[in-house]
């Protein structure tokens, strides 16, 4: 599903440049649930942003579902993101003046899905994350965990090929974190490919594979036996 080869990325800061990714190679199969780990500043978000076409690499190859991702202009990148990718952020990033349902419907709106179908579909996904009753509520009326579940429903509504989550539990307490992980696991169970950036070992253990970043390279990449989050909720 994802294939990257010798990926480099550095940030220019005045006269010096900060080499963040120093040749990353890895690939992800369909249906995998991968944790990207590493200490703060190790380049996890940078990697995820490049995978999410929110940022460009300096060099290297990136192939997503057989499509080489290279030299995209902003319009093309937006269309690819919309079609291929779902995003979940640490701070949820819901649009605060839109109801939960409208938030979930947003990617479908940009896919030009008709209004009726869009709202039906969004409601279905809200139901899947257990928030059907909260459809008309504004984000400010939801708890952190609920917000993140809306965000996950939003990411899934467009039926992306890959779900990218940057510290999805970073702003949540551990109980809520496990609830969110439980949801992510269930989505993965349905065959969805998911990449999670985290620095919390217990969250990483709930994935099926852990990729460890340090100083811009992968120092460890191992398959693990998944810890089910269900037992903690």
């Amino acid at each position, binding site marked *: 599903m994802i294939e990257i080869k010798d990926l480099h990325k550095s940030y220019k800061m005045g006269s010096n440049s900060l080499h963040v990714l120093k040749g990353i190679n890895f690939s992800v199969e369909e249906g995998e649930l991968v944790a990207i780990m590493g200490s703060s500043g190790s380049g996890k*978000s940078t990697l995820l942003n490049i995978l999410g076409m929110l940022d460009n690499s300096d060099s290297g190859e990136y192939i997503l579902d057989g499509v080489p991702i290279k030299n995209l202009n*902003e319009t093309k990148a*937006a269309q690819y993101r919309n079609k291929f990718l779902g995003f979940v952020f640490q701070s949820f*990033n819901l*649009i605060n003046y839109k109801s939960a349902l409208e938030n979930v419907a947003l990617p479908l709106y*940009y896919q030009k899905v008709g209004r009726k179908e869009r709202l039906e579909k969004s409601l279905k996904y809200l139901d899947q994350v257990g928030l059907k009753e909260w459809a008309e509520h504004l984000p400010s009326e939801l708890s952190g965990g609920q917000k993140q579940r809306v965000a996950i429903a939003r990411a899934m509504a467009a039926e992306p090929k890959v779900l990218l989550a940057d510290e999805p539990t970073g702003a949540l307490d551990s109980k809520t974190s496990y609830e969110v992980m439980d949801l992510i696991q269930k989505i993965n169970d349905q065959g969805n490919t998911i990449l999670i950036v985290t620095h919390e070992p217990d969250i990483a253990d709930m994935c099926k594979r852990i990729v460890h970043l340090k100083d811009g390279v992968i120092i460890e990449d191992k398959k693990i036996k998944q810890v089910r989050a269900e037992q903690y909720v």
Partner: protein
Amino acid sequence: MWLFDKDLWSEIFASLGKNMFRTFLTMLGVIIAMVILVLLLGGSNGMSNGFNKIFAGTASNSLFVWSQRTSEPYKGFERGRRIQFKLEDAGILKEQIEEIEVLAPRIELGSHRGVVTVYRNGRTSGSAVYGDYPNIDDIMKKKLVEGRFLNENDMADSKKVCVIGEETYKLLFDKEENAIGKDVRINGVFFNIVGIYKPNQNINIDGENSVYIPFSTFQKAFGSGDRMGWMAISVQPDTQVTIVESKIKQLLKNKYDINPIDERAIGSFDLSEVFNNISAFTGVLKGVSFFVGILTLLAGVIAISNILLITVKERTKEIGVRRALGATPKVVKRQIVLESIMITVFAGFIGFAIAVGILAAVNGMIGEDSDIPFYNLMVSIPQFIISFVLMVGLSVLIGLIPANRAVRIKPIEALREE
């Protein structure tokens, strides 16, 4: 077509509606600008309407011709000779100069601008007394408060009737007293009053206190023979008064042996000049109003653009999220521009409604019967359309500034966690 895309509009309304108070403040500039624009336009239109109303009934393309003394010797005549028009001149002019539409000969009792005493029951009034043809009414319409003006029958039968001014009435009659059918005495001759008129305060050639009697009656009663004092003449609509004026003078100079270079022997007054000056004035006024109004509007729209710029900055994160979710730059741009248009148009309509309300109130206060040159203050449909097209055009152009700023926001920068 995106114009009819309900979702797009609800997107726009949602983002405008989330900060109602600020949206309103943003609109205030355009509302006020629109009020100013419409008031300026309405005011200048009202002034132009007012002048039109005041001069209604007065032929704008008319002139007056009278005789004076010569200022040049000619063909053996000394300078300083008094010229006296004859009634036949009217016929000659009308026949020979085809541009003349209406020609009303007139004769005045006493010297020019002179006053004669009009008697009634021991009361007197010092009035100007004119012998007139009824067609003078086609050139300078008299506003009658009571009765009628002189007519062809009066002329044909040389009836001893007269039309008097309100001023004359006040001097000769008690308040509320009926004057129609009563007699007044002028130079020992009795005249029966058939009408009372109200002089036009703004364009008054005959004076305040005047009495009109039929020309033919005048001739008989006062023995004026074939003498004629002066002429009121209106020319064909598409003819320039000055051209006809010089033709008339040339003909009369020729007839009365006046030196062609003599500028004084025949006096004239070109009323069309007054009208041209007024319409030039109101035209310039309208132009200036429009210009000032549009500039004000521009300032209002720029204020909207400014606020939208601030809004875009505040919405950096939201725009980043939208971009991450698949909003293309074009979609983002369109939304911001449409927000700009929406605010502007909505504000414009509010301002327009307010201004029209004010104009209507002013119209009500001025009323129908006012002599001040303001009447029916309103904007015309073309002015309304031009203003709105300009306003929308400006809001698009100006909206592009925040829209381009929004597009420059990179989703990655917008989404970076602090």
